[in-house]
């Protein structure tokens, strides 16, 4: 049994990486907002929040990399050049693969953007 999922043909894989971005964004924002609202009832410091954001970011980037690899595979590992506009199942698959790969790239960068505040902000300053 391989750990890498086999190729599936569905519309929804297109959204994998952006969904990971959205979940990561919500985890960071909601986590930090709850911490800052309830910090006096919680027995740990803001450093834990930053480490948590770091861990979430690491996980999100890892999943996006996996999604990117899968889409690279769907794109035939780059063996075919765009525009993928032939009326064939192959070209439809290649377009899906390439678009998903592009979205993975965007999501990867956007996750890093969103995580960066945790590098600089060190307390619940209002």
């Amino acid at each position, binding site marked *: 049994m391989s750990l890498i999922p086999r190729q599936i*043909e*569905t*519309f929804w894989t*297109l*959204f994998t990486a*952006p*969904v990971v*971005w*959205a979940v990561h*964004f919500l985890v*960071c*924002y909601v986590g*930090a*907002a*709850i911490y*800052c*609202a*309830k910090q006096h*009832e919680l027995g740990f410091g803001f450093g834990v*929040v930053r480490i948590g954001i770091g861990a979430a970011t690491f996980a999100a980037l890892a999943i996006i990399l996996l999604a990117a690899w899968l889409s690279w595979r769907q794109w035939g590992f780059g063996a075919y050049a*765009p*525009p*993928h*506009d032939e*009326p064939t*199942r192959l*070209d*439809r698959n*290649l*377009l*899906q693969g*390439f*678009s998903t790969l*592009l*979205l993975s790239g*965007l*999501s990867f*960068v*956007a996750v890093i*953007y*969103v995580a*960066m*505040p*945790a590098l*600089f*902000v060190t307390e*619940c*300053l*209002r």
Partner: protein
Amino acid sequence: MIVGNDFSLRERRAQEKRLRAVWANPSGWRYWTSVNNFQVGLWYASAAFAFMLFAGLLALIMRAQLAVPENDLISAGFYNQAFTLHGTVMMFLFAVPIFEAVAIFLLPPMLGARELPFPRLGAFGFWSFFLGGVFVCGSILFDSAPTSGWFMYPPLATKEPGYGADIWLLGLSFIEVASIAAAVEIIVGIMKCRAPGMRINLMPLFAWYLLVVAGMILFAFPPLIAGDILFEMERMFDWPFFDASRGGDPILWQHLFWIFGHPEVYIIFLPAIALMAMIVPTFAQRPIVGYPWIVLAAVGTGFISFGLWVHHMFATGLPQISLAFFSAASEAVAIPTGVQIFVFIATMLAGRVIFSVPMLFGIGGIAVFVIGGLTGVMVALAPFDWQAHDSYFIVAHLHYVLIGGMLFPIVAGIYYYYPLIDSKRLSNRLGKIAFWLMFAGFNVAFFPMHLTGLRGMPRRVFTYPAGIGWDWLNLVSTIGAYVFAASVLVVVYDVLRPKHRQPGGEINPWNAGTLEWISEPEENWGVRSIPIVESRYPLWDQKDLVRRINEGDFYLPDAEEGKREGLVTSVLDARPLQVLRVGGTSYVTIVSAASLGMVFVALTFHWWWTALVFGVAAFASILYWLWTGTSEIPEKPQKDVGLGLTLPIYASGPNSVGWWAMFITMVGDGTAFASLVFGYFFYWTIHGDFTGGLAGPGAFWPLLSLAFFAAAWGATVAARALNQGNRTDLARASLAAGCILTIAGSLAAFLGPWSHTMEPTAHVYAAIVWILVIWLLCHAAVGAVMQLYCLARSFAGRMTAEYDGDIRNVELYWHFLVLTAVVTLLVIGLFPKVL
């Protein structure tokens, strides 16, 4: 090579006659009962445009007032009404609906379909929008328009005297229903009704954009509906959701409003840029460069735009880490936005550009939008925003974004697509005059506002003192605004002027490559026969396509049974799956929309009995609509659609478009519910003890209710399975049992807060628990009606083991309902205990 149908000329003429009869519009005043996408799209666009002119007039009045300092042309009160309605109407009655209009008008021919899958829903959406819009706009004539700004911030708006705020809340909630109806129609249409062969890699880019936008509507509009509910409960019954003295918080409204409000900017922008994605290739005379990059841009923008809402709230005192997340996402969204602009530039560089009027408006719009985008990157930085917040700098920024990103492309679209309406082009000369007036007028009006803002002039002031450096800047803005208005008048004149001397018959005058250009304005059938698509630009690449379509060489060239028919195809590869029969001309859409509209009007003025009467009327007309117009058992199981292909006429479950419509609607519904749950936890975060020391609903009643709802869900699922297995009596018994269990579950849910005398006006905790319970009860009531409806359909012989679309959709509804019950009842019953 695709083999054709080979009909004789006589057969073809007979087919055309039948098709024409089936798709014909009624004449006389019954014309307004039409549900055809062509008419509805045109009405929709005209109404939206008329609302835009109205809102523009309000802007001109405001600019006249601001032309000189200490002016007394209009009163402060009227000025407040004017800016509130201007923003509200432009956003809710023009910017969003115009895209729905264009989508309804263009999508079917562009996808090679005859119609969208739910034409009556489309017409219902239009009438809801139109009636709601007239109601909201009409309020200013009675000096009772809302006055608190288009975002209605409490406590100013919750305390606003008169009916203005209620008109805003209820009128717009009604219009949001129309938007969600359009989203359902558009998503199912694009996913399931494309012409055979139009695989997703061949789909027009317009459809990609619209798919993303319709998806965004599902997640953006429901939070506002949830917010409207809370807001109206506070205004109508004094439930303290936004009243800080009783545990509420005005910031919650800002969250809910902007979770809607920011994605809305992109909901407006993406369809306009989608028009550009159709126009640029035509005038560059080559396919778009970087099709997958546009997919990236559309989907990427769609997602990231949901991570920006707090940048409207930078000045509310949220923790800096929160601000920073949203600031970062606001910078990130510039990446996909920029990508599509580079794609257009690359396409123009790679092709030979014809500088026609649509291209002028398109390029001018992009230039304006880029300036707005750059000031957007500036205000996305919290420290800069703190300086510019609520100043005219923001007014300048948002108008650069919206007018450049939306109005210019829309005018480009009008000039480009006008020949689809009556086979004639608009005037080139007038178009160029309009463009230069608009481009110059716009910049003269809005560029100085950056400076007025940086010099400290706040938004929403009806006048200002002389001699503080704002005078001449305001005067220049006013002059620009009137030049801009003149350009709009030129466009209006060009559209409305009589054109009978102009030669007609211009089908595809720009030599475009996409399918919408086969549409003949004098025929109502959309496409004569549904083609097989093999290219992104079929009119450029598929030889003889137009002739063959018009000779009935492809699918469904006839209407033997006298029904309006289209094809359902698979999501990825557009393989033909089913013949879809869609609803025709009907009064039921207008009656339903009008009675539902009257419910909202009556609620605004607290006419409870009138609201009840019209509520019953709306309920009855919708039931009649469903009973007579949906899930009809066909006279034969399948039919020959031409080219030797035979397809089923009926489908149920995930194979049917109705099931998808239910799924999509419930996703939107689930988002509204999630917003209310968000409210519950929001109150938990802002208080040490969020119950305010009050008793909760306890655990007993909620858990008992949960058991009943779970059983009711089980009974519904069982009824579907039994019905499918031809055990009709058991299925009926199971439905009846399910209905009783639903009522029992609802009673138990009600008794939780009721038996603990939770007083919703006393504290926000009681209010939010009640609102969650009421939400559940309303959905349970619908669930019970659905169970009874299936029971009745089964007895009437309209639902059988083979034709079970009704119960499958009801089962799907119940999956969502049981999820709602689980979340509601566990949250209100157990969360207070675990603290």
